[in-house]
C-alpha cells in the first residue's frame, strides 16, 4: 500500500526541508519537496496531497519579518490553502513554518483568515538554539501531540518566537478551547502564557516553534548514554500521528 502524499513546502532559504522530508518518509508517508514557485506556476497542485508541512528555516531571509514574504507569496493561492487547512487534512508548521501560518492568518484560526497574532523577536533580542522542556496539553484537540507524555523535550532555534496575540479575547479563544497544544516549562522567549505551539479547533493544523524533527531519533538528544536506546524519540510521534490520522 502506498503511503499518504505529504507536500513539504519550500522556498528560498527554507533550511529544514530535507530532515522534515526524511522524517515523513520514515513514518511511511510519500513526501515531496515542492518549491512555492512550482505551486504558483501550476506545476504542482495543493489538493493533490494528503498532508502538508511548512518546515523551518529563514524563508526569504526573514526579511521584513519572519515568514512574511512566504505568506505574501501564498496569497495568490489562498483559496487552495484555506480549503486544505480548514478541510481537515493534517498541516504542520515548524518554526519558520509556524511563523508563516501566523503571518497568513491560518493560525490562530479565524473566519476572516486575518492575522491576529505574531511571533515577535525573542525577549533576549537575538536568536537562540537550545533544548527546552515542554508541557503537553492533554486536553488539546491537536492530532499531532496525541499519545505524548505530559512533559517532553525538543530543541528550539529561532530569533522570532515570542508568541503574542492582539487582545484578551483572542487569547481566550485559544485557551478556552485548549488550542495551546504545547507550552514551555521554562519560557525561553517571552511568549504569552508560555505558548510554544497552537492548533486549529479541529486539531489538524499545528504550528510550533520547537523542532520535533530534531528529536526524532534517540541519538539526537544531548543527554545520551553511550549505549543506544530505542531508536525513536518523542519527535517521531508528531509525524506518525499525521500519517495515522489520514491512513
Amino acid at each position: 500500500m502506498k503511503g499518504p502524499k505529504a507536500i513539504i513546502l519550500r522556498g528560498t532559504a527554507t533550511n529544514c526541508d530535507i530532515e522534515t522530508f526524511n522524517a515523513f518518509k520514515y513514518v511511511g508517508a510519500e513526501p515531496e519537496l515542492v518549491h512555492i514557485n512550482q505551486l504558483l506556476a501550476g506545476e504542482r497542485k495543493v489538493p493533490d496531497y494528503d498532508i502538508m508541512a511548512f518546515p523551518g528555516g529563514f524563508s526569504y531571509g526573514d526579511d521584513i519579518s519572519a515568514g512574511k514574504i512566504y505568506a505574501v507569496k501564498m496569497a495568490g493561492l489562498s483559496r487552495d490553502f484555506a480549503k486544505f487547512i480548514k478541510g481537515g487534512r493534517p498541516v504542520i508548521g515548524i518554526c519558520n513554518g509556524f511563523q508563516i501560518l501566523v503571518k497568513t492568518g491560518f493560525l490562530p484560526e479565524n473566519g476572516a483568515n486575518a492575522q491576529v497574532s505574531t511571533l515577535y523577536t525573542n525577549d533576549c533580542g537575538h536568536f537562540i538554539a537550545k533544548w527546552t522542556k515542554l508541557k503537553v496539553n492533554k486536553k488539546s484537540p491537536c492530532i499531532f501531540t496525541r499519545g505524548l507524555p505530559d512533559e517532553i523535550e525538543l530543541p528550539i532555534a529561532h530569533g522570532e518566537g515570542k508568541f503574542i496575540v492582539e487582545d484578551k479575547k483572542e487569547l481566550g479563544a485559544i485557551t478556552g478551547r485548549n488550542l495551546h497544544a504545547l507550552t514551555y516549562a521554562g519560557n525561553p522567549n517571552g511568549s504569552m502564557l508560555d505558548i510554544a505551539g497552537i492548533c486549529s479547533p479541529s486539531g489538524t493544523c499545528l504550528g510550533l516553534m520547537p523542532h520535533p524533527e530534531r528529536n526524532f531519533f534517540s541519538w539526537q538528544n544531548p543527554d545520551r548514554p553511550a549505549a543506544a536506546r530505542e531508536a525513536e524519540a518523542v519527535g517521531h510521534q508528531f509525524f506518525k500521528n499525521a500519517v495515522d490520522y489520514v491512513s
Partner: protein
Amino acid sequence: MNDELSKFNSLPPKELEALDRAAGWSLSALELAEVQRQFSGMGRQPGRGELETIAQTWSEHCKHKTFSGPVVFRDGKRVRKYKNLFKETIVKATRTLNRKWCLSVFTDNAGIVEFAKSGKWGLAFKAETHNHPCAVEPYGGAETGVGGVIRDILGVGLGAKPVLNTDTFCFGRLDRKYRLPKNALPPERVMRGVVEGVRDYGNRIGIPTAAGGLYFDDGYLLNPLVYVGCAGLIPVDKIEKKVVPGDLIVSIGGRTGRDGIHGATFSSANIDEETSASAVQIGHAVNEKKALDVLMRARDLGLYNAVTDCGAGGFSSAIGELGAETGARVRLEKALLKDTRIEPWEIWVSESQERMILSVPKGKLKKLAAILDSENCEYCVMGEFPGDGRLLVTHGEERVVDLPMAFLHGGVPNFEKPAVKRAVKFNSKAPAAPKAWGRALKALLAHPNICSRHSVITQYDHEVQGGTVGKPLQGKYGDGPGDAAVIWPQAATLDLKDLSGFAVAHGFAPAVGRLDPYQMALHSIDEAVRNLLCSGADISRTAILDNFCAASPRDPRVMGDLVLAAEGCRDAAIAYGAPFISGKDSFYNQSKDADGREYPIPISLLISATAPVEDVRRAVTINFKQAGNPVYLAGASLRGMGGSVYNEISDTGNNAVPALDMKAAVKLYAALAKAMKAGCVAAAHDVSQGGLGVTLAEMAFSGGLGAELDLAPAPRGKGLTSTELLFGESPARLVLEVVKGREREFQGYLKGLPAAEIGRVSGEPRLRVAGLFDEDIAGLKACWRKELI
C-alpha cells in the same frame, strides 16, 4: 595615476613603490621589477586591469609566497635550508603517509577523504581565516568569512553539500583596559560583531555551526583571528572537474559591486589607520543559499563540467584558475552589477560575495537556466573558455586584460627569507602548591579561556539539518562542553539506515607557541586527535587541516616560529598517521597601538581534525553517567607548567613545556579506541586548558554527579608535584568513566600502558580529591558558567 601607468616600464624603483602603495597592490620591489621586465619584453606598457590581475594572482592570499618559498633557518650554529617550506613539511607528511582514503589533497578548494563504508561519498573539509576584514569591520568580515569557506565546499570538485560549519576566534582580553589607537575597535565590539556575523550568516543558510573555540589573549587585541571552517559531502564520482574548450563561463548567485576591492592584496598588509573598510565585502546569505540549492540539483544532472567560487580576487582569480589551461574570453559588460559606478577593472577584481563560476557546455545552458530561474537565482553568461591559453578580458571596446595565462600562473618571483629560533629561557623549578586547591580550581574554571561558551554557542543554530549527534553543549542539562562535533549527515545522504557519521575537533595552543613552536604543533595535533577519540571516532583515519596565522614574516623570529611549527606539523602528522589534506595561512597579523608599541600576534596554529564515526548511536559524551562507575586517568602527567592557564593566574616561575611522547600517545589511544569500541567507556574527556582539575569538574557538573577520587595512583613523570598533576597541561591525557563490571576488560586493553583507576563516580554532588579539595559541583559550575557575551 594614469600618467605613471603610461610609462610604467621605465619608472624608477621609488616611484614604482609609490604607485604600488597608491594603487594598493602590495607587490614587492622584486615582483614589480619582474612585471616591468615581462612587459618590456612584450614591447608595451601594462594596463591598469592587467596590473590589478597580476597583483591579485600573485598576492600572498592566492599564492602563499611566504609558506611555499625558500627559507634559511638558524638555531645557533645549526642551519636548515628549505626550498619550499610548505612542500617539505606539510605536504611531505601527507606524501609519506600516502593513505588511500585521501581522495583529493591540496589541489582543490578543499581536501576530500572517503566518508563511510558505502564507497559512495567523500567528505570535503576546509578551514580559512578572515582576520584582516574582521579587524576593520567585524560583522561584515565574519559574515563573508563564513560565506567564503562555504563556497570553497560548494566549489570543490563539482560541488559538495555543506553539513557543518566550524569557527574559532581569538580576541584581546575582555577583562583588561587597553589604550587603543584611533580606528581600532575594542575587543568586546570585535567579538560581538564577529559572533553576530557568524550567527546571521550561518543560521540563514541552514548549516549547523557546531564546533570551534574562543581564545583570549593580549596578542590578539589589534589583530583578532577568525578561523572559519566547513565540511560537506560529495558523491565520489563528482570529485573530478575539467573545463572543456568551448564551455561557457557562467556566473551565478550574487551581483558584482564595489565592495571588496583589493581584499586579496589587503591581506598582505599590516593594518594601520589608513586601512579602508571598503576592502571588506558585504554578505548576503540568502543569495548563497540559492546558489547552493541550484548547484546541488545541477550537479546531479551533470549540467556543468567545472565549478569554482569567486573568493579573493573575484572573477580574476576564479576565471583565471578555471581557465589556467584553456585560456578565457571574458566580456565584463555582461556581468550583473549592483553598482553601476564601477570601473571595468573593478568588475574584474571585485570580491563581491556569493558568486560561483561554472563551466557550462553550450547545449546544457537552457536546462541550467531553468533550474536557476526556478530557485530565483540570478546568473549571467560572461564569455567562454576558448582553448588558446590566452586571457582576454574586454568591456565593450575596451581591452582590460590581454595576457598569456602562463605569465600569470608561472613566474612569481620568490626570494629567500631568513629565519631564527627565538631565545627563550626555561625554568623547571618545582611549582609551589596553591594556598587553597579548591579556590585555585574555581579561579581556573572562571578564566575566560576555560569558562562556558554557551552564550555564544546558543546563538548559532548548531542542530539544523538534524544531524548534530555530538553536540557542542551536551550532558544531563545540555550545557556541558563537548570535545568534538559528531555529525550524522542525513540531510546529505538522505539515507536514515546509514548510521555512519564523522567527528570534527580542534587543537590550538598559542600559549605553548610563545615558548616552543615545535611543541605547540605537536600538542595541537595531539589535542585534536584526543578530542576525536573522546567522541568515539575511529582515529586511525584522522585527516587534518593546518591554518597558520603569524605576524610579519619580514621578522626572522616570526619566520623561525613558522619553520619550527611546520616541522612539528610534519613530525606529528607522520607519528599519528594523520595526513594534512588542506590548509591555509595568514601573515602580517601585526599592528601598532596608541603608544606606537607593536602588537604582533603569537604564532597561532589551528589544527582542525576529522575522523569517521562508524555508528553515530555509539558516539561518546563527556558527562559522568552513573554513580559507582570507576574513573580512570590515562596518560602520564609530565613536569612543566609552561603555557598553562594556571601560570597566568598564579605564576609558578616554571615555564618548562612538557615534551609530548608521541609514540606513547599513539599506542595509548589505539588501546583506548578498542576499549571504547567494545563499549567499556561511558564517558571520556580530554585534559587540556586548566589541567586535570578542570576536566574532572566539567565531567562532574555536566552529569550532575560527583566523584570520590585519589590521585595517588596516577601515572606520572619523575618528580611531579601535585600542582603539575592537577593544574599542569601536559598533553596526551584523558579521563574516562568506565562501565561498572567491565573494569577487567578495560584493564585488559590497557595492559602495560599508563592508565590508572583514580576513584569512582558518586551520587553525592561533590567533587572530592583526597588530600586536595572537596567542592560542591554546583559551586564549581557557578564559577564556570559565565556569560561572555
